[in-house]
Every structure is written in C-alpha cells, then in structure tokens.
C-alpha cells in the first residue's frame, strides 16, 4: 500500500497520535522502543531509528539510539564510528525542517557509504526529522523513518506523515532528555538541595546569599559544592551549574 493510501485512512493520524501520547509514560528504553516501533508501523514505514546526541560533542558517549530496524545496521555504523560522516546527522545540526533522504546530497565518498549502508537495512527511501534543542540544552534528536520501497515518501501522503513524524521526533527527544537528566541525577547522587544550590549559582548569587537563602553556613555551602563538583567531574560550581543547565536539570 502506498503512503497516500495509508494516510487516507480515517484513523491514520489518530492511531499514530495515540501511540505518541503514550511515549511520555515509557519507563525505560524497551518501552520507548516499543512506542517507536508501533508508531513507525502505523505510519507505514519499514524501519525507524531515533538518535539523540550533543551537538557540541562528537564523541560516541553522547550518542543514544532507539532502533526499530535491523540492529546489524547500527552495529556496523558504530563499528565504523561513522558519526562524523553521516550527512543526515549533519543536516540536523543546522536545520529544523524534515527532509527526504534524496534531498540531502552526500558530499564525500564516506558520506555516500553511510547512505548506502542505510539503504541496505530498510532505508532505501528515508525521511529525516530533526528535533532541535531548546534553551540551554545542547542535545538534539534525529528521527529517521525508512522504507525499502524507492520513492515511498514522494506521494500525497508525505504532508500528513511529516506532521506526525515531527510530533514523534519531539516526543522522543523530550523522552531522551528526561532520561539522561535522570541518569545524571542518579550517577552523581544529586539531591533537591544540590539542585537548589546549582540554581542559585546559575543565577549568579554569592556564597553568603546562597547560605542565607538556604539557611546554611557559608562553609557548608562551599563544602557541599566541593563534594558535588567531584561527583560531577567538574572543577568548580560555575562549571557544575553550566553542566546542570546543559542537561536541563535547572
């Protein structure tokens, strides 16, 4: 069935939106992945992947994947450390509009190889949907929807699909941001009091002001920052507040 025929069905949009609405309640990656797979299936695509990464951080640690497609693709992609050569990711660094794969021309042979590999694993036709960061966040998301049918995204069904895909991308992005925020809170053992300290620091308050506001002694404030800095792996409270803002903690 073509995309246009699928999109003509009366329940097409409402079914996809219902799945997207449930994503916010996903407790873990398995549930989020189930949501992505179900949404992709409802939209009529053969494969889907969502990548979340920090736009300033090209290292592999910043990359998180949800893969509703052949995992061998991602395995190969990671083995070749292709983050740098991916024209679709590069597109999303500077654009917020969804684009079809054929509209993003690969520039180098390495970029062409990335696209060819994707084509082998269900992305012969692809729709790339950026989920830009907002505020102080540096993390962005990229939703890739794929079909093994050439020109799948070229008919009249493209417009409704694009709107749904944007919703899906933003919801998955929000889910990852919340997830990574929680991971940082857990790994650094941050308590509500720590977040309050970081908020004060972000607002530029002095130690005396913070101590007064939180009913602590100045030395207790300093000591608490010192311990928190060590847990976060940063040198000082300014860097800690910056990190917290980047992760959306404050």
């Amino acid at each position, binding site marked *: 069935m073509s995309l246009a025929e699928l999109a003509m069905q009366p329940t097409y949009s409402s079914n996809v939106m219902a799945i997207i609405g449930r994503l916010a309640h996903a407790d873990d990656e398995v549930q989020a992945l189930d949501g992505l797979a179900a949404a992709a299936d409802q939209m009529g695509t053969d494969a889907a992947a969502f990548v979340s990464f920090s736009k300033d951080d090209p290292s592999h640690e910043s990359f998180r994947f949800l893969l509703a497609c052949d995992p061998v693709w991602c395995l190969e992609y990671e083995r070749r*450390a292709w983050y740098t050569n991916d024209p679709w990711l590069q597109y999303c660094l500077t654009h917020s509009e969804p684009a079809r794969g054929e509209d993003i021309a690969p520039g180098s*042979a390495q970029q062409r190889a990335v696209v060819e590999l994707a084509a082998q694993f269900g992305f012969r036709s692809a729709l790339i949907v950026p989920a830009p960061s907002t505020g102080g966040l540096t993390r962005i998301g990229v939703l890739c929807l794929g079909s093994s049918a050439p020109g799948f995204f070229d008919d009249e069904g493209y417009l409704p699909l694009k709107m749904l895909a944007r919703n899906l991308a933003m919801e998955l992005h929000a889910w990852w941001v919340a997830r990574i925020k929680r991971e940082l809170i857990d790994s650094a053992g941050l308590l509500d009091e720590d977040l309050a300290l970081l908020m004060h620091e972000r607002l530029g308050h002095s130690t005396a002001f913070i101590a007064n506001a939180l009913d602590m002694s100045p030395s207790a404030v300093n000591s608490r*920052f010192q311990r928190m800095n060590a847990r976060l792996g940063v040198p*000082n409270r300014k860097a800690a507040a910056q990190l917290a803002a980047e992760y959306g903690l404050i």
Partner: protein
Amino acid sequence: MSRQWVGAAGYLSIFLMPTLFVIGAITERPWLAFGAVILAFPLARVAFGALPAAGVPEWPEPVATFLDRLPLAYLPALPVCVLAGLSMSGAPLSGDGMALAGLALSLWMTLLFGTCVAHELIHRRDKRQAMLGHVLAGICGYPALGMEHLAHHARPGDTRRGEYPLKAESVWQFAWRRMRRIGAELFGPGASTWDPQARMPNLQRLRAAMLVTALTWASFAAIAGWSGAFLFLAMMVGVAFGVQLITYIQHWGLGDDSIPDRIAYGRGWEEDCRFQAWVTLSISLHDQHHRDSRRPYYRLELSPDSPRLPAGYVLLMFASLVPWVWRQLMEPAYVRWLTAPESPLSAGRRLTCFGLHEIGAAGSS
C-alpha cells in the same frame, strides 16, 4: 588547603619537557630533554612513589580550577619553548650529526609529551577547549590525534581496525597497520575531511589542527630553513609512531582476539607511578579513562581491577621495540591480571615489578 596545593603542584611537571628543551638549546646540550626522560623520569618513581591508596582528593574549588586551566596555560607555552629552542639551536642545525640527533630526540619527546596535554583537552565537554586540544595536537605534528582517538574510544577492543593491537603482533606491525588505516580514513581520497560541505564539529576541529600543523611546519622552515622543515616532517612521523606505540602499551592483549568476553568499555593497562600520572596528565590511569572519558585528569584514579604494567611507559616504550623482550616482560603481568584481577601488583618505590609476578601470584603480593 595548602597541602592540596602542594599535591596539585606535581602536575606542573607537564612544563618540564618544554623547559628542558629550551635549557638544552641555551646550554648547547641538545640531548638534555631526551636524556632526562630516559634517565631521570624512571627514577622519579623512587623519589615520589606510587599514587596514594586513598585515591584523588576532592580538591577545593580554587585548586580544581587551577588544575583545570593548567592544560590551557600549556598551549601557548609549548610552541613558544619549541620555537625559541629551535632558534637557539645553531650547532645541531649546522651539520653536527650527534647534536642534531640529540635535538631531534629531545624535540620528539617534548612533542610526544605535548600530545598528553592535547589528549586531555580533546576530551573536554567545552567545545572551545576541545578545539584547543585539536590545535595543540596540530602543534605537536599529529593533527589526526583527536579524530583517531575519539574513534578509538568508540570501538573498544576492535583489533580488526587496529584500535587495539592483536596480542601476537609487534608494535611495528601494529603501528604500521594503524597509521595506514587512519591515513586512509581521514586523509584518503573520498574522506569527508576534503569535503567543504561536511561540517560536523570534529571535522572542523581536524581541519583547524591540520592548518596549525602547516603553520608550525612553516615556522620551523622560517627559523631553520630546509633543516627545520625536514626536522618537523620527521617529528610528524615520529609523533604519529609514538602515539601508536603508547596505544600498543596501553591495550596490548586486551582486544577482541584475546579477551572477547571481557572487553566491556575497553580495558586498558594502568600504572600507579605518581610522577608518571603528573607528567602525562593521568594518561597512565588508562582503564579508568576508558570507563569515563569525560572525567578530567585530576579526578581520575586507578581502577581496582585493572591490568597493571610491570614498569613505567619510558622503559616499556623501549622494551616494546624488541618484541621478544616485550613478551618476556609483559606475559607474567598479563597472566597475573587474568588469574587475579582483583589483586594488582604495585612496584611501590621500586623501578619495576619485573620478576615479582610469579611471587605475587603465589600469594605474597
């Protein structure tokens, strides 16, 4: 607080190599920096001992901020010292063969230690500091460092692509294999490096590093003519080889050909010499670095179950050049780690652990 400052001051030793290089040029002792590395650095273990068992201090904020900025202060210091030293190195560059060899070896070691500082910056979260790390790698003559190193972290244990050495291969085979792959990947025809439309952040950083390498080469040529130009080209080859040599030491026997079920985040050999941790900005705490590459050098500590090198990098660098010697020295330490990873052996204030592993394995470590 003052005790913390004293402890932190050890990391100032990153300035030793550039300083020795200049002093060598001023005093017409071009071997000085290289000689210090060969003779004095291994002995520093006797003087400063092993890293404290208590791990790293929490560091008060002023101290941590100072340590955080230390690599940034090093960035201008290295090229100033190197170029000043070069401009004062009249005799070696005018045809004295022995002096030229001394100058080249001293310069090689100085730039190789410079890559340790570049490495620290490359891993920084701050995009400007990460860029400066790439630039520093470019000054050291190895602009590919940032790109190849981040890929190295992304492919833990991968021996097929030469991220980790095969246990059976020599350092020569590994370095050649890895350098060829990196060269083809980053600089070959079809590489994204040459595509002006490819604008991912690390490609931009690589291009900046390449530009700085070209500028450094031009500076060498301007100061010392053709001799300087050839010297820097030799340094580029030497530093690239040196980085592969260190990678070999850090990951030998820990690839997917040897421990496929224990690769995890990418295991690395560690060494607990305090001075070595200072002068390399904790590169010697390599297992922990692979576990959390964002953690800055002054917050790294030894992994409790990491494989431990039987000696410092300097001794093992030379040992690795002769494969038979390398195996004789490393096999006992390797077996020890495989059988008792939870009880690593420390040389304490001894120079090495050579010969202690069999005794240690018997239970008297």
